[in-house]
């Protein structure tokens, strides 16, 4: 009975996703609305889409699991994932939109005027995307296994297949409306059971057992806790701006101002959403503290309804949560696969294949690469695995964006050196952790949370190499800065015609 309901819910979400992929394009586009301006994507809609794509398996399952496992220190995960948008808002959102760049490699090429920097950025997008895909597949596996008792690879393979079919068939291609809808599905799938469970908890006499354990409520417990916590803060605060599938959504904003408004709305939506996993974690502490011993804390969200309610009520809520979790895996994975395949087909596979073939090949490569990595990983908590992708993003794209937007002195070599250096340092630490390498003492702490070291190193390398290379500051840096920082409403010649190499500029004669 329980399995049946769960399978039904997951099938429903999966077919709905596929159907939206196939028909949604038509449904969302049939209006022959005559006024173009009214078709603009408003900040609210776009913020829903960003949140929908952003809230992944880590947010849906992982945060509650970590809170259950390690207590208040883990609240930095949801806080960091939200506050990342604050930094994005203050430093990056509007200039990034004004730059006209669609992807991070585009931004690199625009700002430092170098194809080399573009290539490096492309590889990093693939790396970060793959690292981010792994926990999605992993989460899908354990969700399906918790719901139906299937082996974990089944869920992972299911999500990978659905995403691949969808992306290759041309559906799910960054349709704002669909992704916006996903946010509200995920929110409801967590919110409704949470309310029911809260009422049940009240009815149960509001027990608070296991909550008062010192190592759970007290912050900064355990070895190297201060370092680990600050490193986590750095990774999540600074990593958000370097996520490939989030950045492309800013292109949809009408101008820099609406990009800022969108970000504010995202902050509000994420703040609302992240209250819920915390609540699940606390409830799990009360009703399912045995999961800590068995090491299966990532399942807490799916198990809790049965523990509190039991019976058919528990079955329905579990099915609802399972469906929401699958929606999360599918939407985030699709966004990631689309981003990676776009970059792969544009920059890595090159001109050997035409656009569509390249894109399809790219999506196959991205999905299969992430699948292989998933099988190679050793039961890392889902939220931690996602946070490692943030650490790589923070050590590579964050310096590029911050320095690129706010410092005239950045050169192509500096950008490349910083991205490569930060990418190698953080990437190797992350991959080592993922395949199960561990070290004793400080080395272990640094491996587990590399960002506090790698982000400053990447920044320093980028600055130092740029200063040493200051003779090669990009020729059009002034023009680029005007474009980045001047509001669109200001009437000024932004130098729109900037001939590339083969279109020569006027000679001095």
């Amino acid at each position, binding site marked *: 009975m329980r399995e049946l309901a769960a399978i039904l819910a997951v099938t429903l979400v999966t077919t709905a996703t596929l159907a939206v992929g196939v028909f949604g394009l038509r449904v969302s*586009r*049939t*209006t*022959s*609305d*005559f*006024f*173009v*301006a009214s*078709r*603009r*994507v408003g900040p609210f809609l776009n913020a829903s889409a960003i949140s929908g794509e952003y809230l992944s398996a880590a947010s849906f399952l992982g945060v509650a699991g970590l809170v259950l496992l390690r207590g208040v220190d883990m609240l930095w995960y949801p806080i960091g994932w939200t506050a990342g948008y604050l930094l994005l808002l203050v430093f990056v959102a509007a200039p990034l939109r004004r730059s*006209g*760049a*669609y*992807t991070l490699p*585009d931004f690199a*090429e*625009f700002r430092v*005027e170098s194809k080399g920097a573009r290539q490096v950025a492309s590889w990093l997008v693939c790396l970060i995307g793959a690292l981010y895909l792994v926990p999605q597949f992993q989460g899908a596996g354990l969700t399906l296994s918790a719901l139906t008792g299937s082996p974990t690879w089944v869920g992972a393979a299911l999500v990978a297949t659905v995403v691949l079919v969808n992306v290759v068939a041309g559906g799910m*291609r*960054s*349709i*704002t409306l669909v992704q916006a809808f996903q946010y509200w599905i995920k929110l409801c799938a967590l919110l409704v059971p949470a309310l029911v469970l809260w009422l049940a908890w009240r009815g149960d006499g509001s027990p608070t057992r296991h909550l008062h354990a010192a190592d759970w409520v007290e912050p900064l417990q355990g070895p190297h806790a201060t370092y680990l916590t600050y490193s986590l803060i750095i990774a999540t605060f600074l990593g958000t701006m370097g996520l490939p599938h989030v950045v492309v959504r800013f*292109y*949809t*904003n*009408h101008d820099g101002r609406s990009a800022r408004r969108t970000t504010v709305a995202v902050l509000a939506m994420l703040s609302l959403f992240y209250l819920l996993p915390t609540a699940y974690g606390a409830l799990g502490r009360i009703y399912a503290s045995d999961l800590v011993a068995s090491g299966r804390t990532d399942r807490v969200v799916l198990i809790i309804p049965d523990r509190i309610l039991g019976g058919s009520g528990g079955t329905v809520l579990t099915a609802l949560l399972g469906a929401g979790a699958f929606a999360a895996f599918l939407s985030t994975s699709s966004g990631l696969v*689309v981003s990676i*395949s*776009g970059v792969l087909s*544009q920059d890595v596979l090159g001109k050997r294949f035409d*656009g569509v073939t390249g*894109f399809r090949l790219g999506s196959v490569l991205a999905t299969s690469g992430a699948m292989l990595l998933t099988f190679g990983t050793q039961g890392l908590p889902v939220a931690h695995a996602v946070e490692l992708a943030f650490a790589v993003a923070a050590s590579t794209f964050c310096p590029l964006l911050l320095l690129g937007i706010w410092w005239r002195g950045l050169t192509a070599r500096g950008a490349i050196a910083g991205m490569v250096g930060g990418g190698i340092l953080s990437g190797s630490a992350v991959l080592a952790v993922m395949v199960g390498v561990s070290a004793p003492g400080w080395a272990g702490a640094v491996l587990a949370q590399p960002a506090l070291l790698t982000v400053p190193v990447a920044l320093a390398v980028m600055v130092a190499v740029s200063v040493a290379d200051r003779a090669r500051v990009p*020729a059009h840096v002034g023009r680029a800065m005007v*474009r980045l920082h001047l509001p669109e409403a200001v009437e000024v*010649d*932004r130098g*729109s*015609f*900037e*001939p*590339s*190499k083969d*279109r*020569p*500029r*006027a*000679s*001095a*004669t």
Partner: protein
Amino acid sequence: MPRWRLLRPGYLGTEADRATFRTLHTATQMTSELRTGLTQASAERCVRHLARLLGSPAVAVTDTATTLSWHGRGQTHASLVGPLIEQCVADGDTTVHDHRDFACGQPGCPLRRAIVTPLTVEDTVVGTLIAFTPTASAGLVRAADELARWVSGQLELAELDVARTSRMEAEVRALRAQISPHFVYNALTTIASFVRTDPDRARGLIMEFADFTRHSFQRAGSYTTLEDELRSIERYLSLEQARFGDRLAVVLRIAPEVLGVSIPVLSLQPLVENGVRHGLAAKDAPGTLTILAEDNDYEAVITVEDDGVGEDPERVRRALAGDESMDSIGLGNVDERLRSAYGDEYGLVVETAPGAGTKVTVRVPKYAAGVRA
């Protein structure tokens, strides 16, 4: 030479061959720079290669007045070569000067001779190439002369490129100014017909007409956003719809994600106008014009389709090739501008046949270096 040496991997020819390769390689390295014209930047990047080709201790590249860049020893001479340049610009001949003519006052100066050769574009001197040597051999003078001629050739090609760009820009300006007289006449008579029967509509149409002309004449810059271009098309179509009434149906399906894409200004308008004027106006039955803009990851795909009378594909091919006699407004120009902005794979795709309507597809990357509205 024994045969086995020919088969050796890494064998790169005789010493003479290799010298030739080196020279050609140096020349190739300069080509792309020189194709940007004679500027300080291009001169600075080339002067080193020029010095290597001539094998002289110091080489200067100048425009018609001052030194643009200097390679090698004795940089203090850079400000002393004014008279040399002047004479060369006046004569247009290669001349050899003694140290007297650019005396630096230093007795041990190693730059005893200067060979001044003109760089010309279409028989006008645009600059000079000055090679400084201890002694001027006839061979070196000859080499300097030939090198200057080669550089001049590259500069002429640069000029040609500039001419091509400015011709295209002039065409856009013409395209902007050239709201077809037929259209103006038709729009005004249509509006006139509404003045008595439906004054509000007439007023609305006049406003549309005013806004349309303003967009066409006023906007500066070579690029605009898809949103602005579509809005102008909307105005145009509402005027045409007023004229054609039920005979013209319009379907617009625009993915909101692509509204911000930068496109060359007036790159869709001519396609729509062609569709209405050549496709639908000639048709007796009511027709539909469909404009689709779809989001395709890093590209936007825009199609303009009419179910009108269609066209002979051969005539379209000629119009795209730039045949002036074709009466299709700017199809060739649009194609050329798209190609020059985004590369040859982004040209127009036209599908048509007599009686089968016309479908024009434009693909535009969301980001292309140097393309922004």
